[in-house]
């Protein structure tokens, strides 16, 4: 950080100066808003909505009123992460290990292409795909009647997997791409079947990508509101949706801030727990997370 500049060397001063914008940025973009929200969370809702200063923990006491949003988020975000992982891994594996040199750039582009359009529009498209005239109608044609997809938790999960898959595929792809393929040959040479090679070598060595992808997806999912709003039909309620409601509808800023702080807290705890679990293993591998 910039404060190390006081040891005097011109290099230190230059470093400090170079770091200054980053430090300011970090402070302005990350720390300040969090402080503001923390202060708001101790206040009271003004009669017509908004914030009025106070020093009370009442908002936190009220958190249980959004318990369902928290439990929804804490079930669907990990579930979505795991689903993404299960689908992304074989995909990334194919891209990194199996795909031919010619096909690889093309396939990678296909993974990235969705990013070229707005996430909103893409998710909106799913309303039609999952709606009565989309997949359910196709299923009807092959004799599977009365499938309801849109505005269900399943629809939300589909939307999540669709939206977040690239974020999971890319880091895993990178770690698999970096993986020294001769290690796989070594394992095979030493008598490991392809499946055992996968579980003993490929999987543990692609753990960094796996951890990065999972963290990325999990953290973003914890704050997700668009997919549940559009594909959950307001029935599948995330903390993100509770926040949108609190800030934009009931304008209960202090309660909204308390919910936001609680979410950040839970997220940090979850990430810390995850990293500790992963870290035990990672320690054995000297592979960095990010």
């Amino acid at each position: 950080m910039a404060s190390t500049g006081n040891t005097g060397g011109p290099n230190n001063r230059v470093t400090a100066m170079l770091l200054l914008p980053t430090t300011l940025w970090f402070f302005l973009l990350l720390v300040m808003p969090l402080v503001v929200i923390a202060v708001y969370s101790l206040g009271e809702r003004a009669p017509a909505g908004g914030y009025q200063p106070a020093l009370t923990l009442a908002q936190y006491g009220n958190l249980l009123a959004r318990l369902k949003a928290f439990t929804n988020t804490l079930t669907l975000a990990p579930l979505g992460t795991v689903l993404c992982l299960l689908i992304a891994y074989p995909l990334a594996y194919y891209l990194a290990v199996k795909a031919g040199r010619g096909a690889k750039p093309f396939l990678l582009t296909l993974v990235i292409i969705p990013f070229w359009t707005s996430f909103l529009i893409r998710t909106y498209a799913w309303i039609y795909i999952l709606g009565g005239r989309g997949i359910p109608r196709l299923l009807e044609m092959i004799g599977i009647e009365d499938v309801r997809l849109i505005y269900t938790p399943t629809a939300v999960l589909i939307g999540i997997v669709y939206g977040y898959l690239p974020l999971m595929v890319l880091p895993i792809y990178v770690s698999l791409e970096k993986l020294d393929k001769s290690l796989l040959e070594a394992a095979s040479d030493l008598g490991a079947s392809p499946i055992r090679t996968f579980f003993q070598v490929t999987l543990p060595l692609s753990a960094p990508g796996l951890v990065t992808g999972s963290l990325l997806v999990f953290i973003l999912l914890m704050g997700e509101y668009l997919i549940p709003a559009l594909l959950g039909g307001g029935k599948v309620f995330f903390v993100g949706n509770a926040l949108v409601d609190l800030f934009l509808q009931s304008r209960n800023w202090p309660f909204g801030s308390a919910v936001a702080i609680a979410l950040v807290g839970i997220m940090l705890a979850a990430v810390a727990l995850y990293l500790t679990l992963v870290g035990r293993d990672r320690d054995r591998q000297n592979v960095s997370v990010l």
Partner: protein
Amino acid sequence: MVETINGTVDVEFHGVTKRYGDILAVDDMDLEVSSGSFVSLLGPSGCGKTTSLRLIAGFEQPNAGDVRIGGASVVGVPPHKRPVNMVFQNYSLFPHFTVAENIGFGLRQLKPRPSKTEITARVGEMLELVRLQGFEKRRTWELSGGQQQRVALARALINRPTVLLLDEPLAALDRKLRQDMQIELQTLQRDVGITFVLVTHDQEEALSMSDTIYLMDEGRIIQMGGARDLYDEPINRYVADFVGKSNFFDGEIAEADTSGAVIRLASGRVLRGRNPRGVESLNRNAAGVIAIRPELIHIEKANGSASLTTDVETTARIKNRIFLGDQTEYLVEAEGFGNILVLASKHAESVSGGFSPGDFVNVGWKESSALALEDTSKGGRPTAVPVPKIG
């Protein structure tokens, strides 16, 4: 096992060909590695050594021909079902395992899996074998190159393979360590009694370690034999050039029979040499070359009188002198011959007192020291040599 006159054969190639697209990496290759021997595949980079090794290990399948291990064809058998293990060029140690876990990897794949105590015991034995006791818990990236290599060796040996394959195992080590490891590998091979097939582009390494050397070029075997065979009886210029240093005097084959040939140099000078192939004579009028090892050339002060010990002699001027410690290398220029490389032993130097650039000297050699060879570099591909049974 296949019984031959000389014992069992562990690895055989019969007309093995491997193509990568247009590249012919291994070209109709025959090979026979007898049990318990230390065999080297020697040749310049890109000549197909690694590919040959990978064909044995099972990472590649031949386009044509048959690969046999212990007498049974292994074409189509995946690597994990072959009784061979490999020491990879970059060692390919698993970074997420400790030294002990790396070494025990092969044991853990066995069905049924040995007990923990047995694995620990066997790993301990291997550690002892490669002198790495106490390194069990270490991370492989904490080890030096030589130590890593020993881990790779132990890992590959723990399942007692029929054949151990080594792909340029010493290439990454520095010179001193390389020499130590050469000896260590030889000792190890004798101790464990496992057949070693080593790939190297370093002729010195091949000569010093192996019982049998296969010298390769462009996917084919040019000559096989012991170190002495290749060094003393190279069958063509390529071999004489690749194995050790040689002086070459180019010319045309003037006379030839099975025992030798006479070659007329461009200068008009006529030189006689031995025919190391012995059975067939060289083609008359074809391009030929006289090859003489520098250490077989006698060098003495130009005193006018011819030496009793040489058949061919000429005066020359010292152009350059390199002190090598145990010997001294002179580059001399002789009329009608061009540059000649001469290696004088310490003993010879102590007798002659040594020479300096500019000195005039007599150089000469015995005709029995000179080899008359086909010059394949001017005449297309070398004639394939039928693989003799290993003696």
